[in-house]
């Protein structure tokens, strides 16, 4: 970070930090885009389930299966999301070190906390530029953990609680979730209310996430959006 006292030694490290880094391995990239698609479908169909906004539809019930189809899409996307999350958790153990970042922000590390403060100052437009970051910056890790990961887990638990009610007593989702989550919240209606609030929490995350990715792609010293497509992080300058 500080001035290099010896100019003779500065050349090789510079070349090192400038080399592209393979950050997001293929399973992580597939997982990311499955999540993006699943969350979009889940939020869209979830809105319609909570409040079916279409106008009065007439005819015998056997002519339509509108609500049934929407709920089916919601449930299929939910299963896709859960399976993708299971694979992703597995990959956190076997993948590279960047695959672990969002599950366990290194809050105990003094250097991590220093970078955290620096990143906050960067977003407050005080810091002139970021450090070179090969993975997520500390603030991004925190947001990924607190907003994305906890939000998704909350939605999975409350979602399968409601799903278990429909599938019925004795089903796996009833035994695993409904049995204890409904008493925890007080009533099924309360779980429903919180499930909708949880969706909004994730929508807030998506707004911030998309904005930050685009902003960092333009303003930071490394690539962002293309990294989630090809896996490689390129750096825009040769300074350390």
């Amino acid at each position: 970070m500080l001035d290099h006292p010896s100019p003779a030694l500065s050349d090789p490290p510079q070349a090192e930090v400038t080399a592209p880094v393979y950050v997001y391995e293929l399973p992580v990239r597939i997982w990311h885009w499955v999540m993006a698609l699943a969350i979009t479908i889940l939020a869209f169909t979830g809105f319609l389930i909570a409040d079916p906004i279409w106008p009065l539809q007439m005819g015998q019930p056997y002519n339509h299966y509108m609500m049934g189809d929407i709920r089916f899409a919601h449930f299929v996307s939910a299963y896709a999301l859960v399976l993708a999350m299971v694979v992703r958790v597995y990959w956190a153990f076997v993948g590279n070190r960047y695959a672990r970042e969002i599950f366990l922000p290194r809050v105990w590390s003094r250097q991590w906390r220093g970078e955290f403060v620096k990143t906050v100052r960067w977003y407050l437009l005080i810091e002139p530029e970021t450090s070179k970051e090969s993975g997520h910056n500390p603030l991004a890790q925190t947001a990924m953990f607190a907003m994305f990961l906890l939000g998704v887990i909350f939605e999975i638990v409350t979602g399968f609680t409601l799903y278990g009610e429909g599938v019925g007593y004795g089903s796996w989702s009833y035994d695993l979730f409904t049995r204890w989550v409904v008493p925890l919240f007080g009533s099924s209606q309360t779980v429903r209310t919180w499930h909708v609030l949880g969706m909004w929490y994730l929508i807030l995350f998506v707004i911030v996430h998309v904005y930050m990715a685009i902003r960092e792609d333009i303003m930071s010293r490394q690539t962002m959006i293309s990294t989630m497509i090809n896996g490689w992080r390129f750096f825009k300058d040769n300074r350390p």
Partner: protein
Amino acid sequence: MGAESQTFYQLMRAQGTSRRSFLKFCSLTAAALGLEPVYAAQIAHAMETKPRIPVLWMHGLECTCCSESFIRSGHPLAKDVILKMISLDYDDTLMAAAGYQAEAILDEIPKKYPGEYILAVEGNPPLNEDGMYCIVGGRPFVDKLKAVAANAKAVIAWGACASWGCVQAARPNPTQATPIDKVITDKPIIKVPGCPPIAEVMTGVISYMITFGRIPDLDSRGRPLMFYGQRIHDKCYRRPHFDAGEFVETWDDQGAREGYCLYKMGCRGPTTYNACSTVRWNGGVSFPIQAGHGCIGCSEDNFWDNGPFYQPLSHVGAGFGVEASADEIGAAAAGVVGAGVLAHAGASAIKHWQKIKPKPKSDDHPPHEGDRP
């Protein structure tokens, strides 16, 4: 008190019931419980051999709608339950005795039949001010409830009051009305929620207990699975309209006349566990959804705070004086965050542009300096 040693059958014969009527009664009870035909014989056998169970029915903070519902039971008739199946020794609404005589029974039965009688509780105890908000017979209800429950075999919680707290426990719950399972913690409690519960569900639970000599299978919240195992929505006759996406939009539109699903009118059927859509009310005549009004979820915990009853999404944050649905709160938060993102993007763009733009040359001296003499 000699009657308790008699079996049900002996008592019924003494009251003039023929053997034929007795067997018909057993068959009807089996049918009402949804049991196989062979169980009619089991019920008959139980009633021929088992002594009547003493039942003490106590009333706390409540509106007596549970009792009103109970006495309207058609299968089995409430009079058969009270006079032939159980020995209802105390119920201040239904009993003939009054005053000290009546209150003495609450001391006498637990001493005479420890661990054998059933305590049925309608209403709940308020705990604030040492229970002073509900005084029965000169003592706080909570004290009497604990004393009588101490030696009971099992406890039945009638209605939403005893099971969850009901309207007297709605926010901010000034009397601290408390469901009985928070007060009685060492006895099996069967919750029969509803405001009121369905009459046949109430008599059905009692019939089951005297027939099989045990409490029915309960779900994780203590409700009998045979009546509360499914939501009203799961057996609703309007369910096909829900799946089709055909909803009543206003109370007098064509959808309402066609009998479409009441989900958009705030029906709580999808979140309410009860037997209304199968057993129905008043001897199977109708139930709220059949009458064209959505379910308000009266057998659910917190239903009084989960309003408004005419919107599918509940209001949240009633405790803070702000009432909005989850969607309104979420949209407002998204608006704030979106505006923040736009403002930040604008500021970032200005900064970025300044960085790219070459800086003005520093050797330009201010024009006014050059004119100085």
